[in-house]
């Protein structure tokens, strides 16, 4: 009995100490993340002078962790609604493991980010958007773990003392829809097909019926990383870049090509769209390296041939895009420095092989829209990851105007 009591006592003490240590570590890592937040995330542009701007925050609970984006949203001199990313931070909590530990970490992170936005950035609660991403929703549904999501939302509401707080659980179609609403300007809303090339998959879509309720979803199981991984598997003993390029061609000509052709045909996007916009990491990286002089622009127009040339440069003269990267004289020195810095970040995030895989996938999709009689105008979107926050802002601004 004595032994068991002692054991019981020790285990409780141990548990308490562990929780305390863990909480301290979480809080510490949270602040470290906030301090170095801008370094953690890459896809940010240069600040543009905005008029009548307001600061908004978006907190997203994703599969990997919790992400905070603080944006300054306003109008440019050209009266175009634009945003500057002020802060972009993330904490890896691995919520989709769905257990007590990750639940606690996620709640701490969510609460911490919310309070940071509220107190440190002085953003009113009404301008802080909180969502649960589609990745979490899909995974929870697969494993019948929806209760964890509801528990998280309820606990968060109690913590921040806002019982009526909206925490939207976004499904894949709504996620793509929100990104479209946030990224594509209103005048091009019904003529643009938006495709987000992620690391593991590709998704996007368009509004086929001239209203924002109906959205046609487009999905591929191929992304930049998955394409690169499939290529790596085929390399064998020959690990040269030439062999990588050859094997990448095989990967993209095989199952990937079949899936892309099928998905594009089924979406009917070719017939329904004038513009095709690409977002995601590879779109950002390609835009930064292809057009450093357009560092101020959140969107860069490109042609199929230009991306083909860029890909050739990646393969044959990679140094010109990495170690000896230069910026044309078309911009001033400040912008030049910013372009060089951003290019450096791109090269940290994507190596030559990832770039080749990503641009290969990009070109394969673009090819579907290079018709003999009609060619679409292509765009590369740089800040696609915060598109959903921008969509909420737009919706709120529209409500205010009404």
């Amino acid at each position: 009995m004595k032994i068991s009591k002692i054991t019981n006592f020790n285990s409780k003490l141990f548990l308490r100490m562990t929780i305390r240590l863990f909480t301290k570590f979480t809080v510490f890592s949270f602040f470290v993340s906030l301090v170095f937040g801008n370094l953690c995330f890459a896809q940010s542009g240069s600040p543009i002078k905005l008029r009548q701007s307001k600061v908004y925050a978006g907190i997203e609970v994703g599969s990997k962790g919790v992400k905070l984006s603080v944006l300054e949203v306003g109008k440019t001199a050209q009266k175009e609604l634009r945003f500057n990313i002020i802060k972009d931070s993330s904490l890896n909590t691995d919520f989709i493991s769905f257990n007590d530990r990750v639940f606690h970490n996620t709640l701490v992170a969510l609460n911490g980010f919310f309070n940071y936005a509220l107190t440190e950035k002085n953003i009113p609660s009404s301008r802080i958007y909180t969502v649960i991403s589609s990745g979490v929703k899909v995974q929870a549904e697969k494993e019948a773990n929806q209760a964890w999501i509801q528990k998280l939302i309820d606990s968060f509401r109690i913590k921040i003392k806002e019982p009526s707080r909206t925490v939207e659980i976004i499904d894949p179609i709504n996620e793509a829809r929100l990104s479209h609403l946030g990224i594509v300007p209103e005048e091009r809303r019904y003529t643009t097909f938006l495709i987000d090339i992620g690391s593991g998959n590709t998704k996007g879509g368009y509004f086929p019926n001239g209203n924002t309720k109906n959205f046609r979803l487009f999905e591929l199981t191929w992304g930049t990383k998955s394409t690169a991984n499939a290529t790596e598997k085929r390399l064998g003993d020959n690990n040269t870049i030439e062999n990588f390029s050859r094997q990448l061609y095989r990967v993209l000509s095989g199952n990937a090509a079949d899936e892309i052709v099928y998905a594009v045909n089924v979406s009917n996007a070719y017939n329904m769209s004038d513009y095709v916009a690409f977002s995601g990491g590879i779109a950002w990286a390609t835009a930064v390296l292809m057009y450093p002089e357009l560092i101020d622009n959140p969107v860069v127009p490109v042609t199929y041939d230009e991306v083909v040339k860029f890909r050739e440069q990646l393969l044959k003269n990679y140094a010109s895009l990495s170690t000896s990267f230069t910026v044309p004289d078309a911009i001033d020195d400040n912008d030049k420095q910013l372009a060089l810095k951003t290019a450096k970040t791109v090269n940290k995030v994507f190596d030559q092989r990832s770039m080749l895989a990503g641009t290969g996938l990009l070109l394969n999709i673009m090819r579907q829209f290079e018709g003999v009689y009609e060619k679409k105008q292509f765009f590369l979107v740089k800040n696609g990851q915060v598109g959903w926050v921008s969509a909420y802002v737009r919706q709120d601004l529209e409500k205010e105007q009404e």
Partner: protein
Amino acid sequence: MTENSKTTLLLILSGLLIVMGLVLFWMWGYTTANQKAVDKIATAQAQKKLAAKTIAASISVAPDSAYVIKLNGLDKAIDSLAKNSDTLKTGIWNNINEFYALRQEINSLLQKQPNNANITAAAKKIEELQYRLKQLSTTNTEILNENKRLMLLLNQLKNLQAENNTQQNEPVAEETNSKVPVQSNITDKDPITTAAPEVISQSNFSSVFSASDLQLTAFQLNDGKTEETNIAGKASKIVGSFNFKNNSSQSNTTEVIVVVTQPNGKILQKSSWESGSFRTKEGKRMIYTCKLRNDYEAWETKRLLFTLVGENYASGKYSMRVYQNGIMLANYIRQLG
């Protein structure tokens, strides 16, 4: 080995040699006889072919000599014209390729065994060949006319440049409303002495297209009405326009790039979805304000327009440049007070 067995062996060997000799002799005789038969057949076939050719030549002598041989002589002249022409090169090469293909077809028809079908086909193709010749002749005339016209334009341009150079060298009392050569870099260092608009416009005919009559007008909103203004601070939008002329007989679609530079040297962008970057013929990368798509007909002139919505425009010189295919067609400067 005994004496008898040796003799028997020698006898067998000599017997075998005799048999082999006989076989070789028979083979020689057979080959010689066969060769004579083959020669006879070949001679007979050659005679038949000669006879057929003679008949074909007698039937097809007229088209062969009248068109094909004569046209062979014309080929060189047509080639040299195609090489000397830029604007209609594609068209002429297509015509010439078609012409060559047709000629080849006629030649091959005439070389075949003559029959009614072949002769009818050859006749039809010769008619088509005549039609193609007419087409080539028309194109040729067009090229010559276009060359003459372009020469005139170039002479005009040279005269204009000479005039401008003379004016520039002379002491200028008033800078406003004077024409000066195209300036590639506009800086805000130039002193602004007046709020009146300064217009500097010039077009060069460095490509198939030309741009002229460039205008950049600022507008302000006054009681809900849009009015023209020369004051940058009051302007809520700038409207640019110019005449875009196609100086060729071809119709197609092209993209015209417009670059509007602000007084601070930065490029004014229409919107992030409509502005981008392009490469000039000199290889320089430039940011553009907007791209205008133009479907043009032969020799057509169109007035192209664009609007830049904004506010708080800085006062100073605004430059507008029009590019097509990386070549600057025209430049214009407008001063806003």
